[in-house]
């Protein structure tokens, strides 16, 4: 049956003066399958949309082309209109004659607009309906990890009414690596206690993940505790496995000094221990810190150094010297902290190269060239706090490959897109928080926690996910089970499944699919169709040019 295409052209309230809309409409009317052409000035306003709905019904249209503004703006509204008129929303194609034609060029552009319209009409003929389905989701969330970021995430998720399970590989919470930082007034102990009391939070310790399957809203996680495996359903998974630190391998001299004079060179953690335990008579008179010499972007070291230098100064009254390159203070509150530290008398020595660390009479001697004085400064310290660098914990890599998510060059989880989707992974429904994604300062971790709670809520709180059914689909008859799509899918959305005929074929999960079309492009058997972007639909647009 011949298509009944309705063409709606909107001049955007006379916002496109360089197009002859009458001519455009006449050209469109001559194209095969076009049963009606209507001009409008307010298609996106109430009046316009109402008119559109009745037009579709009256003219008995089976697909619609709209030539107007960018589909980025209003396509979703127009799709809703189609649905309201009883047409499937996918049977719409738009010609962007405003942003990409009228506004982009000087002078008369009716011909180009007509071209764009022909392209859209070429495509619309081939469009097929895509059904939607409500998919009920599990509203339980799994948080992997037992440190600060994991506990804060669990508490916040529980706060919004989502049942949360915390899975920690250690026997107790809060004992993992990377937990030595000053928590800015947040008391870890009471947070753990609150989590333990919370009826909405399950805590599993000595537990590990054996396998993960499924899609957002419907993950099946197999967990191993005390040698027994249990499988449970979760709607979303948050990885909050934290990080660990190591003293920098740093200047060779430092290593020697550490060996020769183990009492004189300490880590931030050791310093914290000393701050709380050391008797008055043992207080070191001169304390040095090494900062940002090995990694100038390490917010972790910067915050720890500033906090601890301040603590040393105020509790012990020692002379404090910080050997640094550029103290980067981009974390929230860090600049204030830096000022405070300076004002209370901590001396920052800006060095242009790594200072020389030697041992002199059982004490550590640090020699550096001060950039501002233009002179060498040599300071013999009673205590030298070495620079520490953050590293991913061991399980990061294992979990990464199990979840099918990437690691960055430092071995931390790599965000999907740091600007747009900071706590998302490429696997929908799997999120990262805090140290395991390379955010080591508390302020950022708290931001992450907020972001992740928002994302998880958006995903699970409605109780169901609306999915397009088989928008991207493998034709089991054409599939040769070459596994290419499974290997290339960025979202782990494709699996090999025994299909009805008894042979194996790739099957795409509607829930997990993010509709990128990477699989459709690469399939060597041309067995994958992406409704709206099928080969013939793309080629029809090219054919219509000219």
């Amino acid at each position, binding site marked *: 049956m011949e298509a009944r295409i309705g063409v709606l052209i909107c001049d955007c309230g006379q916002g496109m003066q360089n197009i002859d809309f009458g001519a455009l409409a006449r050209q469109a009317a001559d194209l095969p399958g076009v049963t009606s052409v209507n001009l409008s000035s307010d298609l996106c306003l109430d009046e316009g949309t109402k008119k559109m709905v009745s037009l579709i019904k009256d003219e008995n249209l089976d697909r619609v082309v709209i030539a107007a503004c960018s589909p980025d703006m209003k396509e979703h509204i127009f799709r809703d209109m189609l649905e309201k008129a009883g047409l499937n929303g996918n049977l719409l194609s738009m010609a962007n004659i405003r942003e990409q034609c009228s506004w982009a060029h000087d002078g008369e552009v009716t011909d180009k607009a007509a071209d764009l319209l022909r392209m859209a009409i070429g495509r619309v003929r081939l469009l097929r309906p895509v059904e939607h389905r409500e998919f009920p989701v599990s509203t339980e969330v799994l948080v992997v990890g037992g440190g600060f970021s994991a506990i804060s995430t669990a508490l916040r998720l529980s706060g919004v009414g989502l049942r949360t399970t915390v899975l920690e590989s250690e026997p107790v919470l809060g004992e993992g690596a990377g937990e030595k930082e000053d928590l800015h007034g947040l008391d870890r102990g009471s947070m753990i206690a609150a989590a333990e009391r919370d009826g909405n939070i399950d805590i599993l310790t000595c537990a590990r993940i054996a396998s993960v399957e499924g899609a957002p809203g419907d993950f099946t996680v197999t967990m191993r505790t005390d040698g027994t495996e249990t499988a449970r359903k979760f709607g979303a998974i948050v990885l909050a496995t934290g990080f660990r630190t190591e003293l920098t391998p740093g200047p060779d001299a430092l290593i020697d000094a550490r060996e020769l004079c183990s009492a004189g060179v300490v880590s931030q953690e050791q310093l914290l221990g000393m701050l709380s335990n050391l008797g008055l008579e043992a207080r070191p008179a001169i304390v040095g810190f090494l900062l940002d010499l090995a990694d100038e972007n390490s917010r972790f070291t910067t915050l720890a150094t500033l906090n601890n230098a301040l603590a040393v100064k105020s509790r012990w009254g020692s002379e404090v010297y910080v050997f640094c390159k550029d103290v980067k203070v981009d974390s929230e509150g860090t600049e204030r902290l830096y000022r405070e530290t300076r004002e209370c008398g901590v001396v920052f020595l800006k060095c242009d190269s790594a200072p020389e660390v030697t041992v002199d009479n059982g004490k550590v001697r640090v020699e550096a060239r001060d950039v501002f004085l233009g002179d060498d400064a040599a300071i013999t310290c009673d205590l030298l706090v070495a620079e520490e660098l953050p590293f991913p914990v061991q399980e990061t890599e294992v979990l990464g490959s199990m979840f099918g998510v990437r690691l960055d060059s430092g071995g931390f989880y790599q965000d999907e897109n740091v600007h747009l989707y900071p706590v998302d992974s490429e696997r929908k429904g799997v999120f990262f928080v805090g140290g395991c994604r390379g955010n080591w300062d508390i302020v950022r971790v708290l931001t992450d926690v907020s972001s992740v709670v928002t994302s998880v809520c958006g995903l699970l709180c409605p109780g169901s996910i609306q999915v397009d059914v088989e928008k991207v689909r493998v034709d089991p008859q*054409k599939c*040769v089970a*070459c*596994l*290419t799509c499974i*290997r*290339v899918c960025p979202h782990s959305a494709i699996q090999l499944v025994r299909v009805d005929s008894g042979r194996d074929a790739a099957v795409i999960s509607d829930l997990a699919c993010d509709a990128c079309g990477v699989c459709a492009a690469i*399939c*060597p*058997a*041309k067995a994958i169709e992406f409704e709206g972007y099928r080969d013939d639909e793309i080629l029809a647009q090219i054919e219509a040019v000219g």
Partner: protein
Amino acid sequence: MIIAERKPMEEIRREIAPYKKILVAGCGTCVTVCWAGGEKEVGILASQLRLAGSSEGKEVVTLEATVERQCEKEMLAELRDKVEGVDAVLSLACGAGVQTMAGFFEDKPVFPAVNTTFIGMPEKEGLWVEMCGACGDCYLDRTGGVCPVVRCAKGLLNGPCGGTRKGGKCEINPDEDCAWVVIYRRLEKQGRLDLMREYCAPKNARAVKRPGRIHAAKA
């Protein structure tokens, strides 16, 4: 699985230079899986040939078809009409498919568009490695399941050559592990190194009499 790769375009064009109307025929089995001759590759090659024609001012008409297995006469039958309508066939199947096609449509010139390279497996997306030399005299029982006949650059049967590079890499290809080091490590892991110490007599190079021919023992 049989691995192949597309021939250089220059060679393909030389093959079909005298002809105007060409059937580009893909195969839906091995060469589809190794990205050399499935429906997708058929489309790309046909397109490139049409472009080549137009750049020379010569009209090239292409038909496209992909059958499940070109090495099956019965599966080629469906191409009869198409083949009859063209001047030549360009087959993207392995050597077996090309020959079956050439035999089935005897009066039509049939040309290979791929080079059949080896029997292998995908190591990862888009990378295939040779695994089997079809020697007809399988040694894998003695080598921990690693074939020295093709995975050793020299096909040695009694241990590595003296050229093994640091870290057990192959003399010829520093990126590849020396097959004998792989064999050694696997047998060591399984506590079966004695197998490697056993003398392996010269191979029966005629285990398969060429041309190979196998009758199924059972009816």
